[in-house]
């Protein structure tokens, strides 16, 4: 089933078929980034605005590279240089950007629901690059692609998500995506950061790292934000680390072929030991690579289609000679 939504505001409500279609498209785009000339003309003449109200290196760069490899023109706006610093409301910013006729706006914002607000004021697709504690759908999709590449499937896998689930948009998007694709999700952390109401999302809740990662196929570590210390979610970072830092010892409890993900940036020694982050089970750099492919796929699916052009699932017409490669790698679902 093709991905037919107008915006990507979150993975909530996105079906398994739609997710698979996005991942297939992304998989077929990966090859472009390996070429000498890393560019296809799919979005030539299109304008993509990156509107970032929070600092970001990885996500913003990833979106910018994705757009450029599809030949779109990109404009980066960050909060410190935008009219937001002069008191302009988000709705007014949206109206002004809309008047410049962009073809897509990529938004990161500290307020949950900011992308929904923007989507009410613009006609072009909105791509959520992280809104408050709500969702970060492209991160979850690149996680899903990475898992699928390494383990061949998602259905039936056990995925342990460890850390500050309460404040994590990455965890929320993954809950929806992993749930849709039939994986079992365990949420692991202190009850202050893994409230029991999360069981309603169909997840198993664990307050002990060992039981949470035991026999897991995938361990996804969340970044613990230093400012949570002092808000009594846990006494000190040191104590948090004693209970929830992913060490080699903990990894040995998981399945032998376990893979370890982290959305970055890493707090080495706090939520993840360096030996684990840099060790053989870590696929963290694959996540970053896949991030570009996933964002290319979404820009392509949303922008090409929004202009009434046919966006086929595999996007084969823009790839030309990439088609054989897609057949070699794209069979996994």
């Amino acid at each position: 089933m093709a991905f037919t939504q107008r915006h990507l505001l979150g993975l909530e409500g996105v079906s398994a078929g739609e997710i698979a279609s996005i991942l297939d498209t992304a998989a077929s785009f990966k090859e472009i980034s390996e070429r000498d000339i890393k560019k296809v003309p799919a979005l030539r003449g299109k304008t993509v605005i990156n509107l970032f109200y929070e600092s970001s290196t990885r996500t913003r760069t990833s979106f910018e590279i994705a757009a450029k490899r599809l030949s779109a023109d990109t404009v980066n706006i960050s909060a410190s240089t935008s009219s937001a610093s002069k008191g302009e409301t988000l709705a007014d910013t949206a109206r002004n950007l809309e008047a410049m006729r962009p073809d897509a706006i990529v938004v990161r914002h500290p307020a949950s629901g900011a992308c929904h607000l923007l989507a009410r004021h613009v006609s072009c697709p909105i791509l959520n690059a992280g809104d408050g504690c709500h969702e970060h759908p492209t991160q979850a999709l690149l996680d899903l692609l990475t898992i699928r590449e390494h383990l061949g499937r998602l259905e039936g896998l056990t995925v342990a998500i460890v850390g500050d689930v309460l404040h994590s948009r990455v965890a929320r998007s993954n809950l929806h995506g992993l749930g849709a694709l039939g994986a079992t999700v365990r949420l692991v952390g202190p009850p202050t950061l893994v409230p029991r109401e999360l069981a309603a999302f169909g997840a198993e809740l664990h307050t002990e790292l060992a039981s949470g990662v035991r026999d897991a196929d995938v361990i996804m570590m969340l970044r613990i934000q230093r400012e949570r210390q002092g808000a009594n979610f846990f006494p000190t970072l040191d104590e948090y680390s004693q209970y929830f830092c992913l060490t080699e010892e903990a990894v040995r409890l998981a399945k032998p072929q376990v893979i370890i993900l982290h959305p970055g940036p890493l707090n080495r020694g706090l939520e993840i030991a360096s030996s684990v982050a840099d060790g053989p089970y870590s696929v963290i750099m694959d996540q970053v690579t896949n991030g570009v492919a996933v964002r290319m796929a979404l820009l392509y699916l949303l922008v090409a289609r929004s202009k009434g052009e046919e966006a086929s699932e595999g996007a084969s017409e823009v790839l030309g000679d990439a088609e054989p490669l897609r057949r070699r790698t794209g069979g996994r679902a």
Partner: protein
Amino acid sequence: MSQRLLVTGGTVVDPVGGTVEPRDVLVEDDTLVGAFAPGERGAEGGAAILDASGLLVLPGLVDMHVHLREPGYEYKETIRTGVAAALAGGFTSVACMANTEPVNDSGAVTQYILDRARIAGGTRVYPIGALSAGLKGERLAEIGEMHRAGIVAVSDDGRPVMDAALMRRALEYTRMFGLPVIVHEEDAHLAAGGVMNEGVTALRLGLRGIPAAAEEVMLARDIALTELTGGRLHVAHVSTAGSVALLRDAKARGLPVTAEVTPHHLFLTEEAVSGYGTHAKMAPPLRTNRDVGALRSALADGTIDALATDHAPHHHDEKEVEFEQAANGVVGLETALPLALRLVAEGVLDLATLVARLTVGPARVLGLPAGTLDAGARADLTLVDPERRWRVEARVFRSKGRNTPFEGWEMTGRAVAVLVGGRLVYDDRPGTAAALRSAAS
């Protein structure tokens, strides 16, 4: 010479007697003479006839919790526009909260509000004074001075009184004037940063939640303080099932505790926040189905005394922002009565009981001479067409506030005529204004 008016052909709802029956209501000047069997009193003595055929005739409705925003926030609402909205909603008496600019914490501001209300005319406006100076929660406002000027209660509504000792003194001191203390129960520490009900929906949306316990711990505290002091506690906008249980227990023990609930807490749940619509943002937040059920039962059985709107007009710009930054509150005056009637249609409570919660219930809490059809009472009447079908469109509201969560709802029933002190101050009956004129000539 006195002027007489006979309201004929209607069905009179008497919230005190609990009756709903065909009656004619006779008004002399600004006073009710009484309700009589149809035809018992003719148009003797040149009484004008007000045809209420097919209409319900109620004592004028009382809304004990509105924000009229004047002085200081006239861009949101003025006393004039607020009163116009009240009349259109069928309310003949409203009590307005103190969070104006300047705060109504002095006799001068109270007097100013009363003066502005007199100029606006129509609905009677009863100011509620601040409990603490500047609503700062630190020291008592000059309650006696405001009492002399005409306040009917004290409240720091919107700013929960976190200092238990201050609340204790307020409950004690107000006994001198017989004034109720109206409380907005929300523990500021538990609610800190919260923008909606805490629970699964807040987790899904990534919004900080306010647990039901934030309301309940404060209510439990204040019930204990009421017991300690003998003061009168009135709980504004109750929102949780746990609060209902606390109220029920306090009333069973005979404590002078009363409570109100808003229409939005009776019809909407936290699910309304999905999509981040800021018209679903208010304090206390919309809760769950279970809470709605408990609140409805409590309204029916009298645990909750009054239906009150917490009418909170805001400018469009204060709502068209990120959910976390949006102003709290919704308007309610022009949608409360039809929503209330829907409760009757849904079998939650009977019509006479409902009308009691909109009239004599709140009037007794505030000690207002309103809400009954007793002989000698002021002639405030609300005539309701129970069959009138209409759709909520905020753009035609009399209120300046357009922030309603009920936009587009199909309603049945609305106020079509309002008398205040025997004067017909609002008349939306099709074609009957002319009939009244001809009958009176």
